[in-house]
């Protein structure tokens, strides 16, 4: 018998006593807040990420400020051309840069799919304005743009919005602060393998 059939058979035998499967109770929702963007800003900052608020007009300047002086940065193809950034330091990812080449780039600038206020989380669904996963992983600084209207209150709001991307087969990366570890005597240290610097740029909606 194949391993598959044997395991499935064991599962069936193990559950012979089960006559019905109770439905899980619905998960509770947290109470609403007046200022979702303010909560997001506060919670992201709690992770010792840098948070900047700007407007659409102020975005290019905010991005330049967010980068270390003289830093090179990679930009996903879907974002290039919309940022008003140009110059020798900027590289548009053509999908061919190797991990070793990305390791030579200082920073990455991306958009995002969803922001979660309660947990201070940014979720990337790796659409063209966020790029493939490697570009947000290897460089040491990640500057991430979140539009205010992308920010939701809590995790269930985010999972509902992300469902379509997952069904389309896209990977997700949930980011809550810079890479961190507490493995040595429980001292929290920022930055082990992921980007050691995370800058979140919140772009206010036009109507304020």
């Amino acid at each position, binding site marked *: 018998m194949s391993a598959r059939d044997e395991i499935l058979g064991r599962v*069936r035998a193990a559950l012979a006593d*089960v006559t019905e499967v109770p439905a899980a*109770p619905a998960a509770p929702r*947290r109470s609403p807040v007046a200022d979702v963007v303010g909560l997001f800003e506060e919670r992201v900052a709690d992770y010792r990420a840098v948070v900047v608020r700007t407007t659409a007009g102020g975005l290019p300047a905010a991005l330049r400020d967010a980068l270390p002086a003289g830093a090179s940065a990679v930009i996903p193809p879907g974002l290039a051309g919309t940022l008003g950034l140009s110059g020798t330091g900027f590289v548009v990812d053509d999908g061919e840069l190797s991990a070793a080449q990305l390791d030579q780039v200082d920073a990455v600038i991306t958009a995002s799919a969803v922001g979660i206020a309660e947990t201070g989380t940014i979720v990337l669904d790796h659409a063209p304005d966020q790029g493939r996963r490697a570009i947000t992983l290897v460089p040491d600084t990640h500057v991430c743009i979140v539009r205010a209207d992308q920010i939701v209150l809590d995790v269930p709001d985010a999972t509902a919005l992300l469902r379509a991307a997952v069904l389309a087969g896209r990977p997700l990366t949930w980011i809550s602060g810079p*890479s961190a570890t507490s*493995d040595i005597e429980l001292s929290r240290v920022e930055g082990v393998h992921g980007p050691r610097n995370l800058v979140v740029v919140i772009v206010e909606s036009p109507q304020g």
Partner: protein
Amino acid sequence: MSGTFVGMPKFPVAARAALEDTQLRHNLAHATSTIRGKRARLVDEVNEVSSWEDLRLAGAGVKEAALLSLETQLLRLEETLTANGAIVHWARDAEEACRIVATVATSHQVDEVVKVKSMVTQEIGLNEALAAAGIAAWETDLAELIVQLGDDLPSHILVPAIHRNRAEVREIFLRAMKTVGRPAPEDLTDEPAVLAAAAREHLREKFLRARVGVSGANFAVAETGTLVVVESEGNGRMCLTLPEVLISVVGIEKVVSTWDDLDPLLRLLPRSSTGERMNPYTSTWSGVTPGDGPQEVHVVLLDNGRTRALADQVGRQALRCIRCSACLNVCPVYERTGGHAYGSVYPGPIGAILNPLLKGFGVDEQTDSLPYASSLCGACFEACPVRIDIPSVLVDQRAKVVDAHRDSRVPKVEQLAFKGAAVALSDARRLGFGERFTKVGLGVARRLGAAAWTSARDLPPAPAESFRAWWKRTDGGRDESTKESGR
């Protein structure tokens, strides 16, 4: 690596050795109390705007529903993963799983793989199996790296190197990094940030050249064919993204039915685990993504005793475990003895029930001694985000251990006492049952004497206050001087 749990002495012997190790006791006490405090603050925070108990009920509910319909879920998972371009393998036991991973790695002619989230791979002894096939498996979690370079065994689910202090970590890095790759810098200090930076440099070399990655998964979503890895350091993202080939070993109990089921679990896990609102990184992937990440994706669905556990009507709830380690951090026995005394990759209260469930009773003495590695205080049940009633399972298992040794020395009356206690317990699920039960449990344990884990320490006099009350009053024995303050 020579580290292995096979042939460990049974719990009382190992625990006595650990009790004498003051470094370990100090580190564990510090770590567990720090995490306990962070978790407690976040539970309070949730209760201000929602209900932690309702969230636990939802989390337990989605896991339980998936387990009770496991055949349906596994078939669906196989179908969706395959549709997403993943190659699905099934492994009855550790040996079969190791063989599958080694075969895939060998077919790519590699002599090394990078690894993340290796509890399940530690369970099946994958590193040793790969080494036998001439393949080096590099651990990439900082703590796992410390454990591996120190030729050591992990002692805590969450902080596997909790038994090492910073000076020891520095010494291990200086001595061992150069033997397997980029050496630690000569001027390495014992600052945690400096040590972490050394690990970053050492491992980056391996990430950038690795062609095969090996992972576990925290969850597998049947509906969408999606695997989920929850982590902190970014080594998971490295292993899941940079290699050309990814092999994920996934216990069959990791499956959940729908994408939406992740919601309560992703809210419960980081708060219960590291005491954070969310962990730094969570990655989800659904088979192969063209142009992004590994283009050959394997998933090994592993039984290795899980169907045995599933057949146990009392014990099957242990398969809900999301490996958060909250039960370890509240456990007075764990805090005083450490992870190694459990002789397994799954230590603490969950290990005490899971190991016998996976292996069966009457097979080896080490495993049979585990259900006694508890004072039945009930703190683990209160802390567990998926409401695993560990004390009830322990009591049930003690009876089963006794059954398995029926012909030997244990008098029958003890079996009856445990079975009676299990019945009483199953009716008293809410807060406070621990108090009532402690007296029963200790009473029985005193009579059992020889077989009970309590033989490794001095059996306490009959308690004037319950263990749970004592634990609360003295902050887990760290503050024995505290007066009973009229309670």
